[in-house]
């Protein structure tokens, strides 16, 4: 269980002042839960995720995983990045094994250990290709496989499909759903797509902005496994409509067009 206890974060600004990115954020994520965080741009959702990853320290409150306070990155967590962040000089198999390599495994062993994950994300043919030869969707599969390869309990995903086109994005969501059904890991998933949050999650945290705070936490009452068809059910439509209503209220312009 991940417990976020009264987290706050201030950043110093250039002019000597400070800016409050997050204020008094508290919630908890259950084991094996798919938990999404949604909110307008600049609401601090990525900052929050990076705090769970141990990359940023909170200036108030604490984060506990199974009762132990997070003091930095740990082997129990792995992250998937919006812009993939692969090694441009290494081939796909090395990239997938790179998380293991960073944790002290030799290149040879890590490449060997990466092979099953290469297959699981459907990139077997591309083992010795380089990242720039792959499409965005394929690159993010590498990013996902790299995270899965270190066998984390918790997968932290920072708008992982945000840089992909709409169609690729939908395919990736379905693939992630399938992988998650097999793996049953705790997932914290940051997104600004309401469809994505509703389709994937058990619960969705809707964030307030300026400063970032918990607005509400929504249950997604859709049975699993979920197929494409859930996207057209009344429950799904109602849920996304509700999220849109909430988010729209936070955006300055009431006539702002709906994001995809």
């Amino acid at each position, binding site marked *: 269980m991940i417990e976020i206890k009264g987290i706050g974060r201030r950043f110093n600004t250039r002019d000597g002042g400070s800016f409050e990115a997050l204020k008094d954020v508290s919630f908890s994520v259950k084991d094996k839960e798919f938990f999404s965080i949604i909110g307008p741009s600049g609401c601090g959702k990525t900052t929050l995720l990076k705090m769970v990853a141990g990359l940023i320290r909170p200036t108030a409150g604490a984060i506990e995983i199974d009762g132990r306070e997070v003091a930095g990155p740990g082997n129990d967590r792995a992250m998937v990045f919006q812009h993939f962040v692969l090694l441009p*000089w290494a081939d796909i198999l090395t990239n997938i094994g790179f*998380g293991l390599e960073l944790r002290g495994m030799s290149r040879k062993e890590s490449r060997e250990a990466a092979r099953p994950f290469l297959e699981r994300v459907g990139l077997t043919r591309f083992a010795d290709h380089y990242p720039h030869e792959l499409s965005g969707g394929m690159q993010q599969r590498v990013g996902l496989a790299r995270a899965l390869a270190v066998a984390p309990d918790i997968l932290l995903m920072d708008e992982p499909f945000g840089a992909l086109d709409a169609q690729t994005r939908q395919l990736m969501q379905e693939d992630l759903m399938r992988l998650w059904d097999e793996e049953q890991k705790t997932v914290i998933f940051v997104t600004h797509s309401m469809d994505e949050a509703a389709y994937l999650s058990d619960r969705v945290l809707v964030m307030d902005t300026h400063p970032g705070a918990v607005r509400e936490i929504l249950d997604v009452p859709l049975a699993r496994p979920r197929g494409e068809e859930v996207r057209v059910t009344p429950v799904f439509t109602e849920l996304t409509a509700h999220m849109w209503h909430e988010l729209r209220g936070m955006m300055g312009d009431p006539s702002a067009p709906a994001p995809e």
Partner: protein
Amino acid sequence: MGRRYARTGPGANRRVSAVSQKGDAAVGAEALPTGLEGGSTASRTGWAPWAYRIGSVGAVLLIWEVYGRSQETTLFFVPFTSVVGALWEQIQTVEFWDAYRQTFIPFVWGWLLSLAVGIVLGLLIGRFRTFDALTKPYLTFLNALPISTLVPIAVILFGIGYASRILVVFLFGVVEVTLNTAAGVRYVSKDLVEMGESFNARQWTLFRKVIFPASVPGIMAGVRIGTGRAVVGMVVVEILLVAVGMGRLILRYRGRFQSADLYAVVLALIIFGILLQVIARRIERRASRWKYEMEQPA
């Protein structure tokens, strides 16, 4: 009417866009081979740039030759072919190779030293702010100063043996290697570093597996530029103060007005310098290949 008009509107637009798309595709298909010839990939492999290079050098050599032959005396300016002839004769003498060796040995030591020290120093400076602050005054000083002015001091301190020449070659090369390496480290993508940290890598592992390989293009640029500078240092020290090796040959031939021989020594040095540059550039390109490929669409 209005409705009909509205309907033809988008229809017409669609047609226009279809045409323009088709047009773009055709242009794209045609542009591809041309783009390859003119692009950076082709400048390495295509024949056209080479034709221009050879033509350009050939023209200058031809002017040199014609002008040289028009001179009444060979005291000052000699035709290119005489220089080549003189070089051909020189390389058959023991003296030439002795001089080359005398010049070459301290050069190699000073050059290798400048690479080793420059790379290590650059890595430290790029990685640690304290180190940057500690060394900045000296690097600024060395960068602002014509290194030649240090040659007399080096000779006073270390005499006219190998040591002072090694030192000068080293000083000429080390600044560029250091600064380029430091820049290479400093501009490693922050995302890559964060990725490494998120996987709970130890500092040393992160450096070895992420920061160092990502800095290689910067390091290699430093090696290439520093190598060029080291060659300059090698010649400068011999001409300015320690008349040995190739420098001694230059001074002697100048003193006797043996212009063809003088130019021949210079030509030999130029060939040596170009050779080193070509090798360094080749190594740099190979080591930085991922960077070029990343910048081009797959």
